[in-house]
């Protein structure tokens, strides 16, 4: 049973949404319709809605559940600042519960921020830290590879948003950012996701290389560093190297 057919069959999950600013929103791959067996169920809870109830909804579909909870003041703080995550929720999210009219009003009046230089700079800083401290890992490289993928993925999404392209699918964002930067290692960088899924999501995957391979780990961390540095540079100049 897909989550979509279930939603259309019954749009009420019995959540106690007493206020007009309480919402439960499905985001991510299940909302986009490109979920696969590796996908989590990502939920955004806004206001005072009970996130235990939200988890029980997600639990009906078998995937691991991630819940992001925004108390109302936090939601409006991010709304006013033009949060990219809210752009994600408004553009791709599916309202599971809450006042649809209010949600539509909020969606219609939301304006996403346009400059992601500081976010790209932070991703580059973290990847530089990972690649320039190779000796501290003592021959075990899972920890830095997991963090490197997170930064590559985040940097890609910020980079594309900086240039007005909103891509929230992780794999697609890394490949598209790599293509725009005219790099030939987009697939290699995207495959670092296996380390992330292996660790964070406990998925049994064939890893791209052994976790004790210093040479390949170093290559991956250096690639992540140069990738995020190129993104930082492009965001600072607000200039795409390959696309005018």
């Amino acid at each position: 049973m897909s989550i979509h057919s279930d939603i259309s069959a019954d749009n009420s999950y019995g959540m106690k949404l007493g206020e007009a600013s309480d919402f439960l929103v499905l985001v991510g791959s299940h909302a986009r319709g490109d979920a696969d067996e590796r996908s989590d169920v990502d939920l955004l809870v806004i206001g005072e809605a009970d996130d235990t109830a939200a988890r029980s909804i997600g639990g009906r579909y078998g995937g691991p559940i991630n819940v992001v909870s925004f108390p109302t003041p936090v939601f409006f703080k991010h709304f006013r600042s033009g949060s990219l995550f809210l752009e994600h929720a408004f553009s791709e999210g599916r309202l599971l519960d809450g006042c649809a009219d209010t949600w539509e009003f909020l969606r219609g009046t939301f304006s996403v921020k346009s400059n992601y230089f500081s976010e790209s700079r932070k991703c580059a800083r973290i990847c530089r830290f990972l690649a320039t401290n190779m000796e501290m890992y003592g021959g075990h490289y899972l920890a830095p590879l997991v963090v490197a993928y997170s930064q590559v993925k985040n940097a890609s999404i910020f980079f594309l948003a900086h240039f007005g392209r909103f891509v929230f699918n992780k794999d697609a964002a890394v490949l598209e950012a790599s293509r725009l930067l005219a790099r030939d290692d987009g697939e290699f960088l995207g495959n670092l996701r296996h380390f992330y899924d292996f660790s964070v999501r406990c998925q049994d995957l064939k890893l791209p290389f052994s976790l004790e391979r210093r040479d390949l780990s170093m290559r991956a961390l250096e690639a992540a560093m140069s990738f995020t540095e190129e993104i930082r540079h492009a965001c600072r100049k607000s200039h795409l190297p390959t696309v005018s």
Partner: protein
Amino acid sequence: MPVAKAIFLPLARIYGDLLAKKTDSARARYLINRRAEIKTIVDTIWEQCCSVLCQTNPRNATEAQRDLGALDRTTLNAEDARVAEDLLAVLESYDPLSSSDPYIDHGQPMANLVNKHLRKLAATLAAHPSQVAHSEAAALGRVLALFP
């Protein structure tokens, strides 16, 4: 040797930076801003310690906590047992590092983790007999000694 000696320099940098911050809010901002670096440091510590002390390769902090919890510490020497104990305390306070929600205010839990549990673990590692002769461990020890 539970961890590589090169771990001490980034640890010393984190604690040195914290010492240089004058206000609680500046320290809180610093910790939130450095969450990924601190997570990497903590994760590589459990990755290395579990390999050496438990002979396991956990894939995340939860599994590391499980492996360290199941370890019979009476089979370890006193210094390694202290490392295992302090690392377990860090992993029990790991939530602000594992959260995938970037919008939660992690300030207080991060301060608790870094100022209490990680600092104790760092001091134990720097004083470990296998490390104590290294200048990197000494540098970290000097920084930690400046904390009240």
